[in-house]
């Protein structure tokens, strides 16, 4: 270089941008949506984690007592409650472990206690923080309190809170609990292998054969997305349950347990794997196949050296997505799991069945681990997949090959029969009067109002939830994605936002729901008023499905020219004009996709909302669960199919709307 200048930046403060109105507004938006995610995601998770690590124990050493004689005179002897218990052994060590709501009476410390006796008692704490209750009155401090026997009967201790790993110690020393880890991993791994293999073969047939009815097969394969994951469970009960139509095929094995969970999991994860693998196969480069033919490689060799390596990222990604779906799923094992415990169901049992919230939190933390790892690996793989996509390649066009096409057709038919069969059985069950004794058709199973679970109102609530989630979720997600993509500078703020937006994918629904209980049900939380409302259901559903929606929006935004904002600024136009006039219309297809994605998931979700619904906000998917629980399996199937038809209708509506809107707003796409 011929010009000599110092290569070092001169000292001094870096220039700071004078923020224009646009910059301030956009940063404001980012902060608002980030705050939304912090409140609806980060803080509840924090509440849950602190719950998992906090232990409650009764600490008798903090209580001192005095007992009077029969005349009510005290002789001044101070008794430690802990020493008393050591002497009498009245309260066992087991009873000392507690949950936050446990209470301990003190009367067992005095074997000859009688509430009618004239003996009087004095009680005090040894520290200022020691708390006990007289009736419902909370007393703290080290002042002596004197009372008669009848009042002493109503004195109870509150447990003292401490932080540590003791909940986890308890968890791992309880075989019935930690066996679920093994079960969950086993089921998830096996169903991942099965689903990915089946989906790969299906995707391969769709993209590499010239068989007929590809469109129909594709449509059928997508159907499981439209139903709650517990619906295949109900169908399996009808097919292979104790009074099942095909019970003989089980050869003495019970469908209630691993078999049922496996088959059901394959059913509901199949379309998710198929979408990813189809995309991966679609981007394979035809030139590689031409090269393989030119080199006279056999079909078999081509498959292993070209097809599989080309689709490997898709396969890995699909595997992790399926694994994550299965391990975090709650509905299916609840319905068909029987005595076979899975982690997600354990959370439900601990919280709803035993009211042991701390243990529920512990299981949640355990469940977070594999879900988090699967999520992290999947993100890495996805990044590589994108790099592969951007390569210029020639689209592969399959050539007819009679026997191969026939084989593909046969296979796809089998899969289609399985999927339609499951749905058909549910519909059949819903219309039968009383299986297996009275096979006449009837609509009595649709009379939801006489069953447990919330009746037709629950169905109405579900639709309301789905619509609200679709509308508000799309607005929040798309606005957030736009701001994070287009704001100038403000790097740290945007990075935090990105992280928050990716997090929900790694959080199982059960964990999120439980975290919401801890956070929103806390009476000290100013947002407590949301608890038990429709609003909290909408919020949790948006948050639960935030990541995929966010990624859809970001992908659409990335396809827009990055200089639109610069041009608008040079023309002195505010960003919101550009947003409304250009960004939103151009991204309309993606926006509609986000809307329908949120709608369908809000209709089918069980896991996050199962902890949060109230009697006024019961949901259809929850009704399926509760009716099944109460033994009303046929109505459960009927409600499940109502969800299916609603989602199918929504899909068709979405398709029609997309076409209509595309025609109007995307006229520019036509040359």
């Amino acid at each position: 270089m011929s010009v000599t200048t110092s290569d070092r930046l001169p000292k001094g403060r870096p220039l700071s941008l004078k923020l224009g109105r646009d910059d301030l507004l956009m940063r404001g938006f980012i902060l608002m949506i980030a705050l939304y995610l912090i409140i609806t995601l980060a803080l509840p998770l924090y509440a849950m984690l602190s719950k998992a690590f906090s232990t409650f124990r009764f600490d008798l050493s903090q209580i001192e007592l005095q007992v009077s004689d029969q005349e009510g005179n005290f002789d001044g002897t101070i008794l430690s409650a802990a020493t008393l218990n050591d002497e009498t052994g009245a309260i066992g060590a087991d009873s000392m472990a507690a949950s936050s709501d446990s209470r301990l009476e003190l009367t067992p410390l005095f074997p000859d206690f009688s509430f009618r006796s004239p003996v009087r008692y004095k009680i005090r704490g040894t520290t200022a923080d020691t708390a006990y209750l007289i009736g419902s009155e909370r007393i703290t401090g080290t002042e002596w309190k004197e009372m008669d026997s009848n009042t002493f009967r109503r004195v109870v201790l509150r447990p003292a809170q401490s932080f540590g790993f003791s909940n986890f110690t308890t968890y791992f020393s309880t075989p019935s609990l930690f066996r679920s880890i093994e079960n969950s991993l086993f089921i998830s791994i096996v169903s991942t292998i099965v689903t990915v293999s089946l989906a790969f073969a299906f995707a391969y047939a769709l993209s590499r054969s010239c068989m007929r009815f590809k469109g129909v097969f594709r449509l059928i394969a997508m159907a499981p997305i439209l139903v709650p994951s517990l619906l295949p469970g109900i169908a399996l009960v009808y097919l292979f349950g104790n009074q099942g139509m095909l019970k003989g095929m089980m050869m003495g094995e019970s469908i209630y347990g691993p078999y049922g969970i496996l088959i059901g999991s394959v059913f509901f994860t199949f379309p998710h794997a198929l979408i990813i693998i189809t995309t991966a196969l679609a981007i394979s480069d035809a030139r590689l196949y031409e090269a393989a033919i030119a080199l006279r490689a056999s079909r078999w060799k081509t498959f292993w050296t070209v097809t599989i390596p080309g689709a490997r990222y898709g396969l890995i990604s699909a595997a992790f997505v399926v694994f994550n779906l299965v391990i975090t799923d709650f509905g299916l094992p609840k319905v068909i799991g029987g005595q076979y415990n899975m982690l997600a169901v354990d959370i439900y049992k601990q919280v709803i069945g035993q009211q042991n919230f701390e243990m529920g939190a512990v299981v949640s933390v355990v469940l977070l681990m594999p879900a988090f790892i699967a999520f992290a690996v999947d993100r890495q793989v996805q990044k590589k997949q994108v790099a592969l996509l951007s390569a210029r390649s020639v689209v592969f066009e399959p050539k007819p090959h009679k026997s191969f096409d026939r084989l593909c057709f046969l296979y796809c038919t089998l899969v289609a029969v399985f999927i339609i069969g499951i749905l058909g059985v549910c519909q059949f069950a819903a219309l039968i009067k009383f299986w297996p004794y009275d096979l006449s058709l009837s609509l009595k199973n649709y009379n939801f109002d006489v069953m447990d679970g919330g009746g037709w109102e629950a169905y109405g609530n579900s639709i309301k939830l789905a619509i609200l989630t679709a509308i508000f979720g799309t607005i929040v997600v798309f606005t957030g994605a736009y701001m994070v993509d287009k704001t100038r500078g403000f790097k740290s703020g945007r990075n935090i936002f990105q992280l928050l937006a990716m997090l929900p994918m790694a959080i199982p629904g059960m964990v999120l729901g439980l975290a919401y209980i801890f956070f929103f049900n806390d009476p000290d939380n100013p947002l407590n008023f949301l608890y038990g409302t429709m609003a909290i259901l909408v919020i949790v559903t948006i948050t639960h499905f935030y990541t995929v929606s966010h990624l859809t929006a970001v992908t659409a935004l990335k396809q827009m020219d990055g200089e639109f904002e610069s041009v608008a600024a040079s023309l002195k136009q505010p960003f919101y004009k550009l947003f409304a006039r250009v960004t939103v219309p151009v991204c309309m297809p993606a926006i509609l996709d986000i809307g329908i994605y949120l709608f369908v998931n809000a209709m089918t979700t069980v896991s996050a909302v199962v902890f949060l619904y109230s009697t006024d906000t019961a949901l259809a998917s929850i009704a399926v669960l509760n009716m099944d629980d109460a033994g009303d399996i046929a109505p459960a199937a009927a409600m499940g199919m109502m969800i299916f038809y609603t989602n199918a209708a929504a899909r068709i509506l979405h398709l029609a709307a997309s076409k209509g809107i595309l025609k109007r707003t995307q006229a520019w796409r036509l040359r």
Partner: protein
Amino acid sequence: MRTKTALENEADESRPQDAYLRIDHLWKAFGEFIALKDISLSISEGEFVCFLGPSGCGKTTLLRAIAGLDLQSRGSVEQAGKDISNLPPAERDFGIVFQSYALFPNLTIEKNVAFGLENSGMARPAIKARVAELLDLVGLPEQGKKYPAQLSGGQQQRIALARAIAMSPGLLLLDEPLSALDAKVRVHLRHEVKALQRKLGITTIMVTHDQEEALSMADRIVVMNHGVIEQIGTPTDIYREPTTLFVADFIGEMNKLEATSEGPGQVTIGNREFKSANHDFATGAAVIAAVRPEDIIPHGSVAEEPIAEPDNAFSCQIKEMEFLGSFWRTRLQGAALGDTELIADFSINAVRRLDLSADRDIVIEIPSRRLKVFAAVDDKE
């Protein structure tokens, strides 16, 4: 050191009192990487300036700093007497055209052009009239109702231009506006853009890596490399009198010959001494002597006409001749130059007149004014 002084002089000259845009000691760092180093530059009102350089030289970064799209790390920018160093783009006064056109795909041509005029206090009929006027100006009066995708690349770029000048900005910024176009359209549009700029008298900065574009369009060219300005000057200055080896090499063809300084106006190339353009390298210093292929004058094997500078003439052999349409490119080798090959462009006339062909021995002359001397660079840059 010599070149630095020259550059400073140049910079001082290019800083007239009536400068419309003044860039002062501007730096830009991306983390550890310094993209712009101490850039100072003034542009007068109505001037057409090109930032020219290879990719990664910092020219686009400089343009974006002027627009406020990427804030500089140090230094100031002044436009029309106002310090705009840290203003957001919306508060600056410029129109911009990008290589990608960045036309709003879902709006018609009319709406694209009118985008900045709306809610600027203009009445609807006035906006309509202005849009019609602008479309007329860029020669596309009939295309208003179409969508961008229905126009050709060249047409789209003209619409982008119309949109950029719609609000009569004081400064027009063009970021490689013609690079995405076909060669023919590109040449055609060059003239149109230049004509439009002259007509409107708008101060314009264009970023380009295409030297032909810069030479044919600019009033002044700013040649950049590795984040510094190598030379500022008119196209003929830059071509005829490059002040650095980089400029000499980057613009046009150039023979670069290893040489030794023999004191002022003298160099040794190979084993022969030549008169050269003025230089002040010490005797014995390793230098690079450079001459453009078209500056080499051919003579026949026996000089038929008087040779102007006999000291700079020597005989050599034509190794190879390549017909390039309007001239012949030849490779020459002569005992005088040792192993070094010389490339010379001879006109078709000269080749016919002197009956030149491969393997012939001829006498060539290197005019001393055209033999530039630069410091030898030891790095690979």
